[in-house]
């Protein structure tokens, strides 16, 4: 049994410690928002937060996730309203949409650690996430917008 927290819920999973977190999330827990893209940490479609870091779940074994706090795209916000999610909707970033769970999870870490990212910061944070549809110009725009939204939420509080 491997115990871990997924989106705030304690889970006890009877899986191999060698199993990638990706498959435990998708096949065992049925959370299919996290995507399989390459299996070798190249594309970022499988990014989840492991104790807050944007790890690639396709190469992160269950043994590493043991006792840790995992957040998937389904748990990023209660109402699809994380600033990145709102900005993605506002700009209509996705085309096919397959890579965007990972894109948003990566962007969320960027926005947390650097609330006002420059274009260079966006490159530095997001070059690990591939989008075959080529939504990159919009991802950039949406991160800038999310940064403003985040700022505004803070000042409103």
């Amino acid at each position, binding site marked *: 049994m491997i115990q871990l927290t997924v989106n705030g819920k304690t889970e006890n999973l009877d899986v191999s410690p060698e199993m990638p977190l990706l498959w435990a999330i998708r096949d065992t827990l049925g959370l299919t928002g996290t995507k399989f893209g390459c299996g*070798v*940490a*190249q594309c*970022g479609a499988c*990014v989840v937060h492991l104790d807050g*870091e*944007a*790890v*690639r779940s396709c*190469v*992160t*074994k269950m043994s*590493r996730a043991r006792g840790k706090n995992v957040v998937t795209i389904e748990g990023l916000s209660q109402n699809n309203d994380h600033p990145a999610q709102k900005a993605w909707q506002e700009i209509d970033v996705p085309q096919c949409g397959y890579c965007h769970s990972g894109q948003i*999870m*990566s*962007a969320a*870490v*960027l926005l947390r*650690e*650097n609330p006002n990212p420059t274009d260079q*910061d966006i*490159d*530095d*944070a*997001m*070059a*690990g*996430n591939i989008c075959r549809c080529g939504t990159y110009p919009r991802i950039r725009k949406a991160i800038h917008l999310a940064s403003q939204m985040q700022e505004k939420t803070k000042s409103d509080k």
Partner: protein
Amino acid sequence: MSTKIKFIWIAIILVSGIGLAFTVSKNRIVEKEYVSIVPIKKDSVASVAAFKQVYKVLMSPRCVNCHPKGDIPLQGDNSVIHSMQPKRGKDGKGVYAMKCANCHQPSNSPGLHTPPGNPEWHLPPADMKMVFEGKTAHELAKQLVNPQLNGHKDLQQLIAHADDGLVKAGWNMGKGRTAPPLTHAQFKKAWITWLKTGAYAPAK
């Protein structure tokens, strides 16, 4: 400096009886330019010969890839810029969603072309880049014994560094990656020989 290291330090001075150049102490405000090398037996020929062996290892992809001249690591046996261009970051552990440990696991991932792993995976930090890439043997030897460029390491720390977990990981990088040209034991021997014979830098 720990008591243990201090003790060894004194022991070396006693054994060699020669206090060469400078000593390094954390009590000193100004760090000396070079690590105090107290050779057991000063031997420039043996030292340079040993460093040539050391240099082969340090310039192998397994070492140079994470000691790049830019802020992006290299990868592969051909030492190309790391795909997706992860940045060094202040602490050498990457930035934002592109931290080393996001892909590089505590151990090697199974299979070919998967991220090699180590719990300590990182580049040298931004304020101490310890560049190997493009360095001549002369330049690299000088750099390695310069505390201002070697991560403030003194002789004992330099010696100890041969057994650093991440250094040793160079010999266990997972499928499809050529190991350095010497075994770790050979490397360690050459490294210590170089240091203990005076840490002479080759002329070129």
